[in-house]
Each structure stands twice: as structure tokens, then as C-alpha cells.
């Protein structure tokens, strides 16, 4: 048994069942009043006169006359009944029921239930509509008559074709099927995958040109056991095509990447080969890399980072580097690693290619054991220099602090000198916020220059203070 979803142009006629019947409903005040008038007044003229008397030319005049005209048509018994029970006879025209009739299958659907034949022609139609009152007339009004393609499920069962209507399976004679199933499959020649001859179970659809075009919309596909597999961001979509009773059907299977090493590697290799891995979402590439061999991952990272920068891929590359894949990294990839790595990883990148790291401050952060002799010497010099500058700064700042000049200078007349001194003291004295540890050599040199200026100013001001004494 095969179940297929497809579009059929089955003719469907929507009928409204119009039923008119007599019933009663609670009379409204004005209906009752006019019924009383119809019962008690001699003739229409006196009735109208009464209405004029009690409503003048107000809005109720016309309204009452209209109600009177209706009541006037009732016979005396009916009017007496209204007076007795306040129930007003009325002709109810009910158009609330409708059904669909399928002429080719000779079945109807009413209230979501399937009926053989034309439901509207059932002899016991009125009972089936649960109308208790005496029906005056009933009529079928054709509301819509269409044969537009609509989705259906059909079933091939041994030699029979069945179509699902209102949750039930109805015989669909083959000649009708051929007539209502419109198949303009023109792209079938494009199909390079295997066309099976066996099909079973549900989940099948009729093959269309759109499906085929979609299969071959780009080069990112491969064949698995002859079936077409389209590479997508999160999975592979396998399309199994089969031929049945002279037409083509297909079914899809979705194979996710997660956990499937063989698939991931196959896809990566194919994407590399097609040079289309770049167009893939980074998130999807990372999924593929996660389940692939490290060396393959390395070549993918090398390939992509050579073309565009990506933090996620760089971090993944650094992880591989730390895991021991030290050789065969492209320079572009390593440069990207340098940008995104934290300082603890500099040593690994240096090891992969010492020539890439030239910045002295970066070099100073790398484990000295890994450094080439030249770099090691450079770093030592750099560190010594820094220390010498730090020592000089500390010495001068210490001297200024113990000199008490900060307070004493305030007694002096304000001059450019004193102003400058105070500015510098604020910046560099013991509570200063300058971070010498993190400062580069260049910054330290600038600090040194200003601290020296401050130191010289202190000496000068000291002389002035002494003079004043």
C-alpha cells in the first residue's frame, strides 16, 4: 500500500439547503400590541387611526403600521393564540445548512461526515437536519461549482486507487484519476538519481517540476545509493524517487549532521571541492567541523580564514592548535588566530610560525623557552628597559611625595610653573591612576618624561620656597 499526497481537480459543488418552516417565538411588546390591534380593530382604517393616535408622527408610526400589516394577515385563531401565550408565529427561513457534493465520486460531505450520493436528495433530509417543525418548502441553492486543483491524499491498494474524503477512503476509478490528476512533468530528464520501482507506506508526494528544479538548483548535492542528497545548512535532504502506475512520486528523508562523522566529512569535502563552503553559514560549518577529522577541519579552517575573518572559526582553530595540530597552518589563519586569541595562547601560535609575531609586547608575553635566540634577546632588553624606567619614575615620585612640596607649593604665588606642577602632581603622585604594569614601553617613556618635568619643577619651586623663608 502506498499513500500519496497530490493535487486533484475533483469537481466539488457546494449546495446551501434552504428550508422554510413555520415556528413560534416569544412575541416582542410591539408585535403583541399590533396583534391585539389586528384582533380588536374593525378594519385597517380604524387600526391605522389608532396607531396615529398613539404614536403621532413619531418614529414608531411607520414601524407599528408595518407590524400591523403583518399581524393583519394572521387569522383570528392565530391572533387569539398570540394573546393567550405571547408566542408569535413566524416563517423561519433557515439557510444555515450546506454540504459539498462530488459528482465524479457521487459522494457528499455534510457536517464533516461522508454520505453516499447527493445528500440534498435524501428522502429523509429534513429529519437529518433535525428540523421538527412542519416544513413549507425546501430548496437546494448551488453556491459554488469548482474543479480547481486541491490537495488530497490517495492510496494505491493492490489494484485500486482510493481518495481520502472526510476522513474516509473512497474509490477513485483509474480513468477519473487520470482525468483529474494533472501532471505536467517536463523536467523529468533532469533527474540523474535512481528511479525506484518499489514504493511503500505513507509520506509520498506526486513529483512536480518545482521539486526537481529545487533538487538541482545548485551544485551542493551528492548521491547516496543512487538517491539525490541536497546539502543544506543543518542537514541533508534525501529525495527518493519512485515510479508507480505510470507516474512519478517522491519522498523526502532528512538526515541531520549532528553525530554523523561520515556524512559531515563527505559534505565538507564536497563543499571544498565545489568551492562553496564560503557561502555556508559559519554556525553550520562549525557543526560539520565538530564531527569531522581534525586534519580535515584544519584544511577547512585554513580555506575559509584565507578568504574571510571569522572569530568562531579562529577560536576553533586555536583549539586544534592547543590539541597539538601545530603544522600546516596557513599564515592567514594564524594571523586571524592572533587577532582573536587571548594572551595565554600566544605561545602556541608562535610555535606554529615564529616569524608571524613581531610585536615586542606580544613577544614579551610568550613563554621564553619557545622564543628564538634573537627574539629572546630582544625581549630581555625590552623588559630591562621597562624596569629601568619604572625604577626612575618610582624614585622621583617617592622623592616628591616625601618633599612635602605638594602642600608647600600652595603657599607660593600662582604662576604657570606652580600650575603645571599641580597638574602633574595630580596625575602622577602616589594615588595616581596610571597603570605602569599594563603600559607599553612607549607609554612608560612618556610618563618618564612628564615625571622628570615634575621633578625638575619641584626642585625649582623648592628653591623659591627657601628664598621666601
Amino acid at each position, binding site marked *: 500500500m502506498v499513500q500519496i499526497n497530490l493535487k486533484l481537480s475533483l469537481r466539488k459543488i457546494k449546495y446551501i439547503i434552504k428550508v422554510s418552516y413555520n415556528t413560534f417565538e*416569544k*412575541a*416582542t*411588546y*410591539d*408585535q*403583541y*400590541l399590533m396583534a*391585539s*390591534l389586528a*384582533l*380588536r*380593530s374593525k378594519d385597517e382604517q*380604524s387600526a391605522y*387611526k*389608532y396607531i396615529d*393616535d*398613539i*404614536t*403621532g*408622527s*413619531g*418614529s*414608531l*408610526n*411607520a*414601524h407599528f403600521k*408595518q*407590524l400591523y400589516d403583518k399581524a393583519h394577515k394572521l387569522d383570528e385563531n392565530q391572533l387569539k393564540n398570540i*394573546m*393567550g*401565550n*405571547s*408566542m*408569535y408565529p413566524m416563517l423561519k427561513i433557515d439557510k444555515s445548512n450546506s454540504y459539498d457534493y462530488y459528482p465524479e465520486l457521487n459522494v457528499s460531505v455534510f457536517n464533516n461526515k461522508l454520505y453516499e450520493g447527493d445528500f440534498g436528495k435524501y428522502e429523509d433530509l429534513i429529519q437529518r437536519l433535525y428540523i421538527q417543525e412542519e416544513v413549507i418548502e425546501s430548496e437546494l441553492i448551488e453556491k459554488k461549482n469548482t474543479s480547481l486543483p486541491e490537495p488530497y491524499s490517495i492510496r494505491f491498494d493492490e489494484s485500486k486507487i482510493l481518495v481520502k474524503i472526510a476522513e474516509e477512503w473512497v474509490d477513485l476509478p483509474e480513468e477519473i484519476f487520470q482525468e483529474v490528476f494533472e501532471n505536467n512533468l517536463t523536467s523529468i530528464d533532469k533527474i540523474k538519481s535512481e528511479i525506484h520501482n518499489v514504493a511503500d507506506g505513507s509520506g509520498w508526494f506526486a513529483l512536480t517540476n518545482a521539486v526537481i528544479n529545487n533538487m538541482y538548483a545548485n551544485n551542493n548535492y551528492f548521491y547516496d545509493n543512487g538517491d539525490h542528497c541536497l546539502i543544506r545548512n543543518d542537514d541533508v535532504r534525501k529525495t527518493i524517487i519512485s515510479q508507480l502506475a505510470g507516474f512519478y512520486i517522491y519522498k523526502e528523508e532528512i538526515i541531520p549532521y549532528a553525530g554523523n562523522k561520515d556524512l559531515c566529512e563527505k559534505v565538507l569535502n564536497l563543499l571544498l571541492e565545489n568551492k562553496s563552503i564560503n557561502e555556508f553559514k559559519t554556525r553550520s560549518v562549525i557543526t560539520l567541523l565538530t564531527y569531522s577529522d581534525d586534519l580535515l577541519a584544519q584544511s577547512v579552517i585554513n580555506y575559509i580564514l584565507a578568504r574571510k575573518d571569522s572569530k568562531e572559526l579562529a577560536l576553533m582553530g586555536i583549539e586544534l592548535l592547543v590539541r597539538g595540530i601545530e603544522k600546516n597552518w596557513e599564515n592567514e589563519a594564524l594571523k586571524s588566530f592572533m587577532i582573536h586569541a587571548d594572551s595565554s595562547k600566544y605561545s602556541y601560535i608562535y610555535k606554529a610560525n615564529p616569524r608571524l609575531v613581531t610585536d615586542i609586547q606580544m613577544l614579551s608575553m610568550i613563554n621564553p623557552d619557545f622564543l628564538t635566540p634573537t627574539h629572546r634577546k630582544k625581549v630581555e632588553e625590552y623588559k630591562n628597559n621597562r624596569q629601568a624606567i619604572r625604577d626612575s619614575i618610582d624614585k622621583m615620585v617617592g622623592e616628591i611625595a616625601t618633599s612635602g612640596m605638594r602642600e608647600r607649593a600652595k603657599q607660593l604665588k600662582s604662576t604657570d610653573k606652580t600650575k603645571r606642577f599641580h597638574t602633574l602632581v595630580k596625575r602622577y603622585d602616589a594615588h595616581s591612576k596610571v597603570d605602569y604594569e599594563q603600559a607599553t614601553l612607549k607609554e612608560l617613556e612618556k610618563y618618564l618624561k612628564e615625571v622628570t618635568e615634575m621633578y625638575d619643577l619641584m626642585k625649582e619651586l623648592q628653591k623659591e620656597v627657601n628664598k621666601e623663608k
Partner: protein
Amino acid sequence: MKNFKLGFYPDIKNKEMLDLVNDGEGHDVLLSTNRLNIEFDNRDQRLVKTIKEVKLIYELEDKGCLILLGNLGCDFRQPMGGMFFCKRVYIDQNVDYHAIKGVEMNICFSNYPLSIESTQSVLARLVADENFEFNLSQFDEFMDIFTFYKKLSSELNNNTAFSIRSISDSYYYVPVDVKDIDIDEANQITNLNGIVTGYKIERYKYDMLSSENQDKVRELVDIKIEVGEEDGDADRAIKKVKKFADNLYLTPTQEIDENMTRNLVGFDLVNIQKDKTDVVVSGEASLRKDEKYNYLNLYDMGQKVKLESIDNSLRLIKQGAAGSACELLEYIIGSKQMPSNNSARQDGDNKDNYIENLDESQKKAFLMATDGSPVSLIKGPPGTGKTYVINAIVQYITKELKQKVVISSQTHVAIDNVLDELMENYDLIIPNRITNRRNRYSGEEIDSTLYKTWAKKFESHNQRATDKKLAKAILGDMSNFTGSQLFRFSQDTTLADYSVLGATTTTSAIGGKKGLELLEGYDWLIIDEVSKCPITEVLRYLPYVDKIIMVGDDFQLAPLLEFTKADVEGLPSYDEDKFNKLESIYEKSVFANTLEKAREAGRMIELNVNYRSVKAVLNAYNIFYDGRLQNMREIVKPTKVQFNDFKKYEDKDIFFVEVKNGKEAKDGTSRYNIEELEATADILKDLMKTVENPIGVTVSAIFPYAAQIEKFQKKYKELINDAKKHFKSFEIDTVDAFQGKETDIVLVNTVVTMEKGNFLSEFRRINVSMSRARDKLFIFGNSITLSKIEMRINGGNKRTYFREIIDDIRRFGKMIEYNGGLEYGSNKSEIKLKKD
């Protein structure tokens, strides 16, 4: 056919539109201009060379008009002759060609133009034609300010909506002033200050109420809204909801637009309560079962639809495409004199039935309003029966002229008052009441309202029948009626069957195309309390009618802009100059502006018989009307509130309570006076002790400042609740909230003890406060300060009206000295009656 060359500026867009008219054929065209701008011939200054900014308006086949804007004049290049130099061409789909004011002509563009001489004579004829120019010089500025107003409005209110946590089942709510009911105290409903506003009652209790009281019962739902959990969030939300109480909607989505008006349900706020951190709003709403309401939307939508609708009207008017509205506008705010027909009675005009119960001034007003002239103003000072006259006019228009009337006002109450009157008698007029709120006259309710009004009085209507035997038989039948307590009116009626439409000037229910269909075929517009309407709201319905009757009183409260400077100062579009202009345009009532024009043209009648207040009370506010109001109250209703202590309050009707040592204090921009509150409370207590048959007496306390009310409610919660139960009703509110209401006894606080910079110099507030009283009026204050306050009426001389009022009270009323204010909360208060 007039031939012109067609020229156009090189950068003109939409040249293909020009091809439509430049087809060598003659077309019927309307010519008009917003302002005459003429260039004369250099050689002979008597001849017109060019008229600038002329509109050539072509009717389009489908809808709307094609409009060419440019200069029409003489061109002396070859071939010499008439030329239209087009600067702009556009299509306006919203205008109706036949409603445009302009001069008709058949124009053809060709290379053989009209000669220079003929062109000049065409131009001269155009200039002279009174249909050519549509000029309201104020209008451009007005549009500019209105655009500014629109911007501020939308910036101020963008997406103000609260998520709804839950909506309760509906319940019956009976306001506290319904008395003949067995109340369970546990079901009382209080406001945020603990003042009882009403009670929840069960269905069986509702059934036991009289039909008059049943009408007062409302079916409410409680809606819990999300307001945030921070400190102060709830209070901010409450403030906002209160401020926009007139524009609350329940909506399925947070953002709403004009196309969704059908999905909006108006929410008529009755009460707000705080339940721990939640805010619960209670009110009336016609909820549909199939709709889910997720948001309480404040203001935004109502305001938007209202503004769109006003904007639409203004655009039509500006384009000169609003038919008679252009003329109406020129009469109302422009410089044209109002035309006036002869109001004298004509033979066979059938007006007798409608005026037989009117007094002389009411008759005059009726005859003027129905003489067929386009504009009429009726000035209705307090208690002079405005509603009564409006009713007579509407009855006449609908029944004799068989024409249709829109009745509008700013408030629902004012419209419903007029409609109540229309629905009063056996020959009632059933209105089409347009509102998003639940209303007794709206489509859903009218069947039940007819039962409650007309059917309840059937016995008396039945007596009008000339065939007494028939009437008797029918009456007998009717006693057996056990059917539904409804009429079958609404389902048998279509829009065209109505001849009266009631809608507020600010309603959001009339918007877009649907709104226009509703107003189709209406000839008359009556605006009640027009003195409270800003001009924008008056203009709203103008394009749809031919005649307008404005009823109001420029001596009562004027319009108030719904936001203050402080509210909008920080907004991106704010501009100080524009704001000041907006405030002045908005707060200047159309009525006050138009009054003088109408008076000159004989289109204004002042009603001058007061039926509300007893003589002494009327005298107090008659001073503002230079004593023109005649006192008729004692004749139509001689009985007054009675007291068990005759000497105290019964022999006089107006009292001045001199609050010794009262001190005015500030609370933000508002003010209060504790001593005056104490005096008010003590007088109220005394009234509760001395008024006879209190259950039939209505009392109100009117305060000029919100801070004074707030303090009164907080301090005298118990007393207020007792007074509400003791009297038929006891209301406390600001002057603004009281316009249109009246009670037997009124206590008016004045608060001020400093002369300068207070509200009271605005005589309208004093007039409204005092004129609410029917039988007894108590004014609290400091007579020395009040006597010094100078007021000016419409540019007249400054006068110290309070001095005159107090002097009058000394002579004809009673001065009460209150001296208990020095020690707050002590029991030392004493009431000394000076003139006993």
C-alpha cells in the same frame, strides 16, 4: 468654449496627466482660487493680465478630480492670446466635483487661443464672480496649527496600552444614589480615596428595582491590568487611565489603526481600585464573545480617528470642496455676513404644535432657528431650557420638514439629555446613536430602551386613542403580555429610516468611509454646549450639512486643551510660539467668537427665563447677565427643600460662610484651604441633621481646585459616605465636571485668601458653580479677599462681582461666621449666625 494655450514649467511632474486635458477637446471645468492674486496690464491698469494660482478642476470618470494649478492670463508671444501656465498637476480622489465651490467653464487647450481682449474679459468676469474665490485668510495658519496639534498628540500618546491580566464576569452595579434597595455593605464599591461609589447587586435584587432605578444600574466588568512592579508604577498608571478616561478602548492587539475601528470596544470607566500591586479598572463595555481583548488602550486610537476625521473635514474645506460648509465657515469664522431670513410666522407653517409650550424667548429662538437660514445661535444661560428648545426644533425639522438632524456635543451626557427629551413622549423620535460605548440608544440597546420608555407609559399613550372601546380592549390584552420585554425595532430598521443621529464631536466611531456613509443625507447640525467645543470639533461635521444651529453659553466654561505645556514641553515637535497660538485658538470658543457676528446679523437669540434657581440664588449669578434672566422657578415649582430648624436655613436661600482665619496653601500648582474644608464639613453635618426628607434632596459640593477635593475626600471619608447614603445624592467635584448638572443644595468653596493670580478671576467658573443650585446656595470664603477680586466680561470694564454678590447676600441672604479653623481637628468649631 474658451480656448487657451497650455504651457507648463519644465520641471512639472506627471506630464501624462496633462495629456488627459490637452486632447484638443473641450472639457467642463471648475475654476477657483484660494486667494485673489491679480497682475494688471501695464498699459492699462484697469485690465487684468493674469490671475495667479488658479485651480482648474476636472471631474474624473472613476472618482475624484484632476486638478491643474497655475496662472491664467494673457501671453503676448506668438500665437498671442489666452494661456494657462501650469505649475502643478495632481489627482485628489477624496473630493466630490459637484461639491466644489467654483466657476463653471468649458475649456479647450489648442494652438488657436482666445484673443487677448477676450481673455481679458474672461479674467474680469472670473474676478467678479463670487464663486471664484474661496478665501479664509485664517485658514492656512489654522491648518498649520492643527498639524502641530496632531503631531503633539501622536507624540504624547504613542502606544499607550496596558496588557490585560484578566477580565471578570460582568456584574450589576448600582450607584450609591439609588436608595430603594436592600444593600449588603460587604458588596460596597469604593474609589481610591475610600469613598463609596456604589454596590454590587445580585440579579434578583436588580429585578426588584423600579424601572427608573433599573436604568441607573450598569453592567460592569473588572479588568486587572499590568502596570509594572516598580514603586510608583501603579500610581502612574492610575493617573494616566484617569486622565484619558474618555478615551479608553479594549483591543485585541497593542497597536491599532483606523481600519480596526470595528474591533475596538469603548470602555466607560466607572471606578479604579488598587489591589496590592495590581490596578483594577471597572467599567461598562459591550464585549463580544468571539473576540479576545488583550489590551486596555488609552486614548491613542480615539484621538487618532478623531483627528483623522477632523483633518479630513479641514482638508475638504481648505480645498473649497466641502459644498455648503465653505459658506457656513465663511459665516462662522470668515468675514461674510450671516444671511438671515424672515423669522416671522408664515401661514400654514404648522409650527403651532411645536411652540405652544415654549416661553417667549424660546419661541423666538425656535422661529429663528427654523426660518431656513444657514446659521443660528441660541445662547442658553443656566436653567433656561436649552434642551427643551432643541427638542422642539428637532421635532419640527423631522416631522414637518421631513429632514434629518445630527445632534452633537462634546459630552455623551449632553447628547443623551437631548435624546431623552426626544424619547419622552408618545410620538417619540428614535435616534441613531453612534458610539463605541454601551448606550441606551445604540443599536443593541434601543429595543430594550423602547420597552423601558414607551411601553412603560403605554397606558397613558393608549388614552390618546379616539376609539375608546378599542383602546380598552387592547389595554385588556396588554395585561396578558408575557413575551420578551423588547421591541422589534432594530432588526426591521435600516440606516435610512433614522432621521436623528447623535454623536459626540469627538467620537471615534465615525471614521473613514463608513463614517461618511452614515452622515449622508443629513441636512442639519445642532451642537449643544458648543461653548465648550474648540473650533476643530465644530468643523468636523460641517462638510456634511447645510445648516447649523449652535446652542451654548459663552458665559459658561470655555474649551480646554487636553494637554498642558508641561505635558508636551519635552516632545520633539514642541515649539513655544506654536503652542501659545494653539492654546489661544483652541481655548477660544467658536461660540464666543461668532456671537457678535450673529448678534449683528440678527442670528442670535438669548433664552432669558430661568426655571432652575429660586430668586435669591438666581440673583447671585444673574449679575453676570446684567439681570436679564427672569425668575420663573417659583412658578413652575413652588416647593423647596425643607428644614426642621426653620430659622437656620429655611427662611433664606443663599448663604455666605465667612471662614475666619482661613488660609490658602499651595500644593504644586493646585491650592487648598483647610479651614474652609472644616467649615464645609460642619455645614454638611448640620444639613444632614436639619434637612427634612433628605432622601428626596440632592446635594453637591463644588471645589475650584483638585487639591481641595483630594484633601476633603481624605479627611472626611466617613462623612462623605454618610452624606451619600443620607441624601438622594451627594456629589463632590470640580467646577468643570459639574457643568450641565444641577442639585437642590450646592456648597461652593472658593479657597483663595490671596487676591492675585487665582482661578476665580475667571467669572465663568463662578457663574457655573453658583448656577448649579436650585434651592439653596452656600458660598464659603473670605469676603474681604473675594470682594477685591476683579473680573472682566468679554472685554468690558473690570468689576468686583463678588463684592456685589456678597452685598446682595447681606441684604437678601444670610451671613454665617465660621470660627473653628484655628485648631485643626478640634471640636471647637462653632457656627455663629450673624443675622438671626
